[in-house]
């Protein structure tokens, strides 16, 4: 999880947590898809809106947490990409 803290900074990786590791391939290269979650800063307007949406059940997942997927090369350990992961609850 150190790579996430290095790339995103301490402020955006509060209470960081490993959520899932999946094996996959990107452009024929074997990769790990590593999902981490953290608590974004409370003064972040976008986070506040997201938390409100989660409270209302439109996004689901663990209320207040932000999920990110890091694509990491199995061969080199290099981080190839990072994206936000939205997780829905049943019925959505």
């Amino acid at each position, binding site marked *: 999880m150190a790579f996430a803290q290095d790339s995103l900074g301490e402020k955006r990786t509060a209470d960081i947590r490993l*959520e899932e590791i999946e094996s996959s391939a990107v452009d024929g290269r074997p990769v790990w898809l590593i999902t981490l979650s953290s608590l974004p800063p409370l003064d972040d307007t976008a986070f506040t809106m997201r938390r409100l949406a989660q409270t209302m059940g439109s996004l689901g997942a663990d209320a207040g947490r932000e999920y990110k997927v890091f694509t990491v090369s199995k061969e080199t350990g290099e981080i190839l990409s990072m994206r936000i992961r939205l997780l829905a609850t049943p019925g959505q």
Partner: protein
Amino acid sequence: MADAATLIKKHQGKGVFVDANLFVLLMVGQVNPKRIQEFKRTQSFTEDDFKLLTTLIAWFGAPVITTPHVLSQVSDLTDLSGPEGKIIRRHFKATVETIQEKYDTARSLVNHRLFERFGLGDASVAAVCERNVVVLTADLQLQIALVASGLDAINFNHVRSLGWRV
């Protein structure tokens, strides 16, 4: 929602539902822990994860609970090559003879609210979880769906992070 540590304490000695991917880890680790990081279905886990899983199962106590649908997945996913392919079948047989199977008909499960999104196997997991059984899984989407339904489900990856030991 209750965190992993809270659910581990709450369900001590009450048995646990082990989801398919972790069940595969259990089987491969019992046959040869060295193969965990080589085998395609378990390479995201380590030998320490296998030890943690066995420790957790012991903590929750007998019985390990599952469904025929999940066992079918596990049987298909434990296709080890070489002589260990037969050994893992024997371990699977011995394990199945000691676990508790909960059965819901496919006809019933296809009407479960999780079926359309997750399929028959995960619907069978949810149906058992609704009987006050805690589920241990490494599948984030399933764990979130169960928790969102008010059920007790532990993300094994959270326990890895805790460095939890009995």
